[in-house]
């Protein structure tokens, strides 16, 4: 069995997450991916915002930074630019990254800075009691959408793709093995890598929307996921309400910190090479 404990701060357990919360499955997939790559704990800096998902950083034995709501990516940008040798992984929620932090999210993707963003999309604000999020599906209920959500929602992966990220992938907690492989690829990829994970919040979302137990919610993930290869031949109508899973973007693009290094090197290189 995989030795999760060697990556956890055991004295900080139990986790604050509810029984049935999907976040623990993401945590485990992430640790397996990190182990598989063989990264040293000291090389990893994990940065999170505010929310249930963002509490993850308190439990893992890396350099960990729990920041302000929506701003994890900005802190992570500072770390990566100042110390590029660190592997900087951002853990964030749908509200954290795409409501209050939406601007930072698209700008980090535009810069294509070498961050791995693991975005826990549970379609709700879990931590603050189930308020509506930019990813709450239209018509679904939230504590601040008692008559059903009347707004449109974001396609989180699409946003990163449109803004210029070099790696974009989506998976679900039901597909934990696929998720692990995707996270592994995302960490290894130079550039902005987004992993959108569909996860369940049975407490604040499932109950209010009569979606059943955590198991029922994962069953729903299973039944509604369409691999990206199959989605290519389906119509928009057929894909309505479905989760397209797999690697959506895997492109080679210049990375932000490496581009800046070229400027630094113009001054640290010998005058001879500069003149060339």
């Amino acid at each position: 069995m995989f030795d999760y404990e060697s990556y956890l701060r055991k004295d900080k357990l139990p986790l604050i997450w509810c029984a049935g919360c999907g976040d623990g499955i993401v945590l485990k997939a992430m640790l397996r991916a990190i182990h598989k790559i063989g990264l040293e704990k000291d090389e990893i800096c994990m940065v999170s915002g505010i929310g249930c998902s963002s509490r993850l950083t308190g439990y893992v034995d890396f350099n960990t930074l729990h920041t302000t709501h929506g701003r994890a990516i900005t802190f992570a940008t500072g770390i990566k630019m100042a110390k590029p040798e660190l592997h900087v992984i951002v853990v964030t929620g749908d509200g954290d990254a795409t409501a209050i932090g939406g601007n930072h999210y698209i700008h980090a993707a535009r810069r294509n800075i070498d961050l791995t963003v693991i975005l826990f999309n549970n379609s709700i604000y879990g931590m603050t009691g189930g308020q509506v999020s930019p990813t709450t599906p239209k018509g679904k209920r939230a504590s601040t959408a008692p008559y059903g959500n009347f707004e449109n929602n974001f396609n989180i992966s699409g946003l990163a793709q449109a803004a210029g990220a070099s790696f974009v992938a989506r998976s679900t907690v039901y597909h934990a093995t696929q998720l692990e492989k995707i996270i592994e690829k995302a960490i290894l990829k130079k550039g902005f890598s987004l992993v959108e994970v569909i996860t369940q919040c049975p407490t604040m979302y499932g109950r209010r929307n009569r979606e059943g137990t955590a198991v029922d919610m994962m069953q729903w993930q299973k039944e509604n996921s369409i691999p990206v290869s199959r989605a290519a031949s389906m119509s928009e109508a057929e894909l309505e309400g479905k989760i397209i899973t797999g690697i959506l973007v895997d492109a080679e693009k210049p990375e932000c910190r490496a581009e800046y290094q070229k400027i630094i090197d113009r001054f640290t290189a010998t005058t001879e090479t500069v003149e060339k």
Partner: protein
Amino acid sequence: MSEKDSTNRVQVLSGNEACAMGALAADMRFYAGYPITPSSEIAEVLSLELPKTGGVFIQMEDEIASMGAIIGASLAGSKSMTATSGPGFSLMQENIGYASMAEVPCVIVNVMRGGPSTGLPTMPAQADVMQARWGTHGDHPIIAIAPYSVGETFDLTIRAFNLAEKFRTPVILLMDEILGHVNEKVVFPRSEEIQVVKRNRPGVAPQNYLPYANTESGVPPMVSFGEGYRYHVTGLAHDETGFPTNKAQDIERLLLRLNNKLERNRDQIIDYATDQFEDAEIGILSYGSSARSARHAVFLARQKGIKAGLFRLKTIWPFAGQEIADHTARLKAWVVPEMNLGQIAHEVEWAVGRSVPVHRINRVDGNPINPLEILAKIEEIC
């Protein structure tokens, strides 16, 4: 500064340029910011100079992001700073509180312009001094210092970094539009004369490191991310290990340590200058650009045989209330000229009680205070 030593140690510069050069002399190696008048020249100079030192300049998407980025860079081991003006300073407040709470050294420059809101983008004010103290929520420690000349801007920028490192706290450098844009002669110190404080690293092995230790000085040693000490940083109330806590005892200990650490070391932080104050009967208390007018007013008053003297704050926060009270005994009155509606005058009143009257000279119309306005007030009261 090595080239400068032999060649041009004397230069004519603006305050914004001097600020950027002071930051480089203090070993600042990370700048993140968002353009705003009247501060933008600081960013422009640093975008040009930082890569030459191996340092990093990045223009962020807004001031919230700028503040987040400098905190991240500081935790990664780079001395870091941002510069802005009123509206941007407002946006930075939440993360300034984070830096206070998580004790991350960094420097925030606010080249003050007229407010509130978009206010007067190209005109000076000093109306953010209270925001510098209380802009972010919660009881928190903060240092704010204010230069009054271009040369002093260079020196105090270095001092801002030194104080930030020494006390593990954000330091706010309060400039204003006049200072930012005025061109003056600067005589740079020789590089061996410049003192640069290094981060106080822990003397213990990683397993024994307490990033938020309740040390005697109130300031725990600090190590950067990626150096083998894997610790946790949060804006939540935390115990000495840095992890969140709900224990009343731990929370209180943290908050008291944070808020006392500057007070306990105030002698090292508080700085002021006096001019013709020894025999003064009328004390003019001022800071920043207003102190330039105040100094001239003292000169004019002395020509008329009036014993006026200048007490100029270089440290705004923590407030030099005790020092001001100690200098009040011989005075008939204090006069406090400032480009706001009395933000520091109020503190002076509080410091001296009813012992002497405190006269205010305030201007909020985008114009500097004229020395003659100050002279008129001096003549009126003596």
